């Protein structure tokens, strides 16, 4: 139940932060930090063995009929993720109290942040794929709101929308995929699906959709472009969501599926590993050309995410082990880098590396943290990033088929990583010559020294990066727990080591570092390749183009189907009535039995008067005449009702007709005497055809409907039950007030609504319209 309590706490904190944000000011961020803090306490208690064995598993029934069980199982892989989510979340929330100037909407920010943390914890601890999807979407939505937090900036809004559209589309793909897979496996339990490991065509299509959804979330090529755009978010958000946690949700799903699905579905490993490899190279390449430090980090993240996908996507235990290690290492060093760059941005007012110089001397603590983290990213011994890279190279070298290609990609990717790590360190910290910076450079003495609390979180993460490198046991325990949860107990023997001895992995690591230095030192080669790649269309342009195209297409369709002419709309509605039910009537043409021309001369006479008056009402040009003729139609109808044996109807008709007439006369008093002859906007013949067609259709329908009635009527039943059950002799009245009283209630409601509308329209003062005219 402890897991549930932590999740519920996140929800409550989100609510509390939203409500009390104004009163608490920046302290609201410390309030929401209690959520991750509780999760950390739980994790520590578990690590120390203080909790019972069942403490991390819970099942709550939600909607059992569709297999929606709130199954929470926190296994080793989940614990690794929980450490990242809660640990980095805690630090980021503390960091954010210094990052933000006091502002009114911090409560909302804190609320979204803790809601995201809760959603992410749920995502990584549920065993039900439907709950997983709900949590997945919750992270997309909170990510959208957090990217667009500075909603007065158009760029932030556009980036937020872009991220939402891309990850939202991916979410739909994931939902479709999970449903297909769950349908094939016959269970919505994640572990259940992995045990069954279905391979029928529907399941295969489902897996493809899952890969697609995971790729959008984890910013894989070609849907990676939303992540650099998401850098419009405040830096704490970038550090937390867009490097350490949310973007790893896709990896989480892929890593869960890969060990069970990779061996049985032939295309899985090549596709997923290929996806990761291409992403690793492309992201590293783009990072080399960024001038905005956060953009550089974003492309670096894309690259590293590709690296992790490449490792975990295969499903081989050793590779998965390396992937889990890199997952941890990347979260540590990349969050540090974001936090450090955030400090620089905050103090210097820019994060453009062409405007920064001499930062290292102004903030040595942050500079040191950034340097160590970048070194870990590049794979410098003895940092934790080095261990992860060694483990990766060691495992790719052991893979049989495709191993050499994977190793090559990892080495080239590492060269790029080392190069952009150098570019990052140089760009953010170095004291540069006058030809290396722009004219509007920020002078180092203008940069204020950061407060100690602001630099603290990055320092904590840096210490971990160093500590895990030297003292590997705690990290090893986490990673081994995660790997055994994914691939089974046979992975328990794979352990992390700092020193693998002089072998091929060490050689390749060194090659990557030297190569990175060469690439960074001689940027001319980069520029030459860039000229070639500039011809390839950018995916972001494709996204923008398709979005524009969609909107233009919508405009075009609207222009056609919504011309704004009421008569035309009427014609369309009537034509639909004519065409659809009309065809059905034509297919069942039949004349009713006992068809007579008329029952009495009176009937003929009255109907002739009614129709004649109606024609007159339609033709006359004087308004009053038209209304009087309409009255004639109504009174004629009343007489017809008497002839048909319906005195109640006749009575009502008389009353209503008189009222209507009074109403019409009241209004027409004001209107001009004659109808204006307005020009025909669309063909008169069309109106003739549509109205005549409607009339003929209804007449035929009347006959066909009567012929179709073989059951007789309910009259006898009503006549019999009226007195004993309704207590009245007038059967029509009893039906209205008793048998079908709800109809009458609805009728009265319609009248009340109409009366309110009439009163408002008549009594509200008239405002001048666009032409500036006001009537009496």
């Amino acid at each position, binding site marked *: 139940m402890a897991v549930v309590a932590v999740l519920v706490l996140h929800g409550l904190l989100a609510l509390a932060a939203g409500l009390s944000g104004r009163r608490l000011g920046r302290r609201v961020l410390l309030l929401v930090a209690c959520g991750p803090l509780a999760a950390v306490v739980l994790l520590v208690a578990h690590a120390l063995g203080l909790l019972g064995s069942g403490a991390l598993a819970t099942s709550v029934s939600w909607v059992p009929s569709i297999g929606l069980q709130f199954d929470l199982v926190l296994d080793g892989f989940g614990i690794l993720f929980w450490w990242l989510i809660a640990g980095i979340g805690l630090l980021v929330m503390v960091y954010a109290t210094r990052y933000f100037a006091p502002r009114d909407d911090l409560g909302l920010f804190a609320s979204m942040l803790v809601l995201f943390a809760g959603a992410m914890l749920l995502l990584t601890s549920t065993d039900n794929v439907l709950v997983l999807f709900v949590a997945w979407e919750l992270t997309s939505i909170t990510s959208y709101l957090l990217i667009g937090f500075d909603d007065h900036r158009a760029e932030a809004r556009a980036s937020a929308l872009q991220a939402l559209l891309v990850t939202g589309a991916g979410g739909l793909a994931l939902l479709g995929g999970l449903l297909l897979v769950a349908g094939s496996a016959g269970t919505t339990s994640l572990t259940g699906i992995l045990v069954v490991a279905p391979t029928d065509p529907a399941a295969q299509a489902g897996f493809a959709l899952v890969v697609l959804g995971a790729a959008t979330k984890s910013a894989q090529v070609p849907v990676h472009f939303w992540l650099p755009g998401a850098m419009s978010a405040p830096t704490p958000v970038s550090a937390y969501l867009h490097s350490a946690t949310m973007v790893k949700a896709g990896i989480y799903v892929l890593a869960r599926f890969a060990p069970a699905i990779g061996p049985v579905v032939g295309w899985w490993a090549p596709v997923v590993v290929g996806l990761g490899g291409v992403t690793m190279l492309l992201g590293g390449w783009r990072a080399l050309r960024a001038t905005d430090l956060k953009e550089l980090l974003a492309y670096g993240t894309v690259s590293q995410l590709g690296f992790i996908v490449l490792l975990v996507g295969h499903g081989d235990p050793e590779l998965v082990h390396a992937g889990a290690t890199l997952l941890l290492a990347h979260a540590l060093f990349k969050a540090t880098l974001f936090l450090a760059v955030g400090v620089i941005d905050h103090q210097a007012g820019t994060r453009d590396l062409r405007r920064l110089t001499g930062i290292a001397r102004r903030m040595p603590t942050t500079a040191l943290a950034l340097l160590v983290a970048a070194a870990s990213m590049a794979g410098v011994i003895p940092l934790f990033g080095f261990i992860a890279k060694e483990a990766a190279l060691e495992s790719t070298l052991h893979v049989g088929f495709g191993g050499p290609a994977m190793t090559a990609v990892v080495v080239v990717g590492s060269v790029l990583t080392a190069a952009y790590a150098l570019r990052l360190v140089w760009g953010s910290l170095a004291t540069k010559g006058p030809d290396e910076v722009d004219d509007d450079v920020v002078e180092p003495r203008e940069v204020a020294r950061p407060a100690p609390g602001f630099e603290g979180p990055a320092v904590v993460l840096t210490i971990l990066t160093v500590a895990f490198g030297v003292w590997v046991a705690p990290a090893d325990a986490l990673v081994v727990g995660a790997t055994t949860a994914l691939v089974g107990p046979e992975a328990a023997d794979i352990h992390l080591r700092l020193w693998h001895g002089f072998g091929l992995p060490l050689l390749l690591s060194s090659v990557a570092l030297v190569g990175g230095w060469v690439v960074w030192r001689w940027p001319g080669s980069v520029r030459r390749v860039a000229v070639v790649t*500039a011809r390839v269309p950018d995916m972001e342009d494709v996204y923008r183009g398709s979005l524009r195209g969609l909107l233009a297409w919508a405009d075009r369709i609207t222009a056609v189907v919504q011309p704004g002419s009421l008569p035309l709309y009427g014609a369309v509605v009537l034509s639909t009535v004519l065409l659809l039910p009309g065809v059905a009537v034509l297919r069942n043409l039949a004349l009713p039995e006992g068809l007579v021309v008329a029952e009495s001369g009176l009937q003929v006479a009255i*109907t002739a008067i009614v129709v004649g008056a109606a024609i007159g009402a339609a033709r006359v040009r004087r308004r009053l005449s038209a209304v009087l003729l309409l009255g004639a139609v109504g009174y004629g109808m009343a007489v017809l009702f008497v002839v048909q044996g319906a005195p109640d109807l006749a009575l009502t008709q008389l009353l209503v007709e008189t009222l209507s007439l009074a109403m019409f006369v009241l209004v027409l008093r004001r209107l001009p005497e004659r109808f204006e002859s*307005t020009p025909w906007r669309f063909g008169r013949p069309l109106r003739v055809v549509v109205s005549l067609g409607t009339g003929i259709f209804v007449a035929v329908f009347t006959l066909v409907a009567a012929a179709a009635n073989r059951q007789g009527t309910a*009259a006898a039943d009503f006549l019999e039950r009226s007195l004993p059950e309704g207590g009245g002799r007038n059967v029509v009245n009893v039906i209205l007030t008793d048998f079908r009283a709800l109809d009458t209630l609805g009728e009265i409601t319609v009248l009340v609504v109409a009366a309110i509308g009439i009163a408002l329209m008549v009594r509200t003062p008239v405002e001048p319209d666009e032409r500036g005219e006001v009537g009496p």
Partner: protein
Amino acid sequence: MILVLACTIGALYTIGAWLLMQRSLTRIVIGLAILGHGANLLLLTAGGRAGGVPIAGADPATTSDPLPQALALTAIVITFGVSGFLLAMAYRSWRQRRDDTVEDDLEDRRLAAAVRRLDQDRARRETREAAHGEIADQHEVGVGPGGDG
């Protein structure tokens, strides 16, 4: 079933539909009222042939069907409410614009005009580009942000 009544219903529907497709709100209201009369008659004739007044205990064979009468009664009242509502609209339209005609929706027409303009622009641009095609081919791809994909 009585042929005369079926024809009357058809005639009322024809006239009502015709008036519905007019621009004057007053005429539309009149059309709706006439359409309503047709509908009421349709409901009533669905009950079969005319007969005696439906009073409890009467012989079902000779009385008219009470259920369609109840439905038609409801319909009469609702038609009355709708007519009143539309008349109030016509009245307000008159007060505001000295006019009770329903004009085309301005926003819709603006959108259609914008789409037309866009098409014309594109056609013009394409003609221009076709004329300068050779120059565009020689244009070099520069080094700038946003290269690959």
